[in-house]
């Protein structure tokens, strides 16, 4: 479980995040949604410690990140896995070496076991065939899957994904979403996902936080999105014609069916 308490973050005189409070539970896929520039990436970077919050606390299962020493911070980071918007694979290493890298760095297991574990993770994302290829030789969707395999190699407690399916076609996005969702449940991880993909919101939004210009504007889950009355949220979610029509249809059936009850 990750708790965020009264988090503020500003750059020079620009306030990017204002008083964010949230709780992310384990075994669930937690989504942070919001418009481009609303501060999602900054929030995630604050949570993982790549950026220092101006004020506020972040608790990892009750452990306060800000109060930790350098050594402890390093150690807690080994419990984290992160998938970057650009996949961020090491392009001088093959796919298998990429997945093995965290193991090589932190595991005392013999080489044989490390290879076995890396192969297992690659198999989990269905990429065992590509193990000898280099990141430049595989597609964007495959790169994301390798990044997932690398992130879970050390059995992390916390998984962070910054727009895991940006730049991917809808079908591949679904594959990635399902993969993250399944892995989260399987290993009871605390997973936080940044996204502005409505398919993800409706598909795996077990807990959703909507950020508007740096403030938390709405909180709920995917079943509450359709009936939400928050105007800013509706303007964001139902910005496209298609989704607006879906919402209208939903509302009309909802309104006509409730009085009958």
């Amino acid at each position, binding site marked *: 479980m990750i708790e965020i308490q009264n988090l503020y973050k500003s750059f020079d005189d620009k306030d990017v995040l204002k008083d964010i409070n949230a709780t992310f539970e384990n075994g669930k896929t937690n989504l942070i949604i919001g418009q481009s520039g609303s501060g999602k990436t900054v929030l995630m970077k604050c949570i*993982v410690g790549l950026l220092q919050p101006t004020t506020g606390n972040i608790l990892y299962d009750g452990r306060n990140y800000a109060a930790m020493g350098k050594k402890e911070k390093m150690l807690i*980071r080994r419990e*984290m896995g*992160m998938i970057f918007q650009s996949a961020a694979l*090491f392009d001088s290493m093959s796919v298998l070496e990429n997945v093995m890298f965290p193991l*090589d*760095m*932190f595991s005392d297991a013999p080489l044989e076991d490390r290879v076995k574990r890396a192969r297992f993770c690659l198999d989990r994302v269905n990429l065992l065939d590509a193990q000898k290829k280099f990141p430049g030789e595989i597609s964007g969707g495959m790169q994301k899957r390798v990044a997932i395999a690398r992130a879970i190699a050390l059995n992390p407690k916390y998984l962070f994904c910054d727009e895991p399916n940006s730049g991917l076609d809808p079908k591949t996005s679904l594959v990635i979403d399902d993969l993250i969702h399944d892995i989260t449940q399987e290993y009871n991880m605390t997973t936080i996902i940044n996204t502005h993909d409505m398919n993800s919101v409706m598909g795996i939004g077990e807990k959703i936080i909507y950020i508007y210009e740096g403030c938390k504007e709405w909180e709920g889950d995917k079943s509450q999105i359709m009936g939400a009355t928050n105007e800013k949220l509706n303007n964001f979610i139902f910005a496209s014609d298609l989704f607006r029509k879906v919402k209208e249809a939903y509302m009309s059936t909802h309104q006509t069916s409730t009085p009958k009850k």
Partner: protein
Amino acid sequence: MLVIKALSSFGKYLELMKKTFSRPERMRMFFKQYIKEMNQLGVDSIGIVLLISFFIGAVICIQIKLNIQSSWMPRFVTGYTTREIMLLEFSSAIMCLILAGKVGSNIASEIGTMRVTQQIDALEIMGINSANFLILPKIIGMITMIPILVSFSIFAGFIGAYATSVIANVITLEDLTLGLQYDFKEWYVWMGYIKSIFFAFIISSVSAFFGYTVEGGSVEVGKASTNAVVSSSVLILFADIFLTQLLS
């Protein structure tokens, strides 16, 4: 303003070096990187070092023989001067200036690209000291390889000088050999090695600094690579003056 900017850059550089020089997390991984860097930065530079040194050695020999040597000078002058130029300046300082171009841009663009594609963030998230993991093997690898490159350079320079004698008959073999051996001071060779080690440190650490601190995209990586070459070249020139004063 410029002074303040330079000072703050220098401060950041020192901070980065502090982060770089710590015990590697995993010696196994450090040695793997170290071998890789020695190969990439050192072994891959041998070709260009040999080529340039050979021709410079030959050209110095020809220039001195044809344009400076006169009948009233002793016959060892050409060989002697060629040797001293190679040992004292060319094989250490000028060679390192050339390497600053080749190796410096390589280091800055590699680390810069890793920065803008978030590979460095990925390392940090894993709880790895990215500066230590990426930069230390480069610095140590470069320092290990530079005496070898300097030796190759001296050697190739002499071969170049001999080639002018054997192929073009610019100078007789006896005169050249006499000159190359005349009044030899071993300390000059050591001086070249010592200077080159400082230069190797400048090239690798300064270029790594420019790469590591890139912000933005491919344009900034290009700029960082240029800045790395310019800054390390200027620093090598200054360091050369101080070191030459100090060691002579």
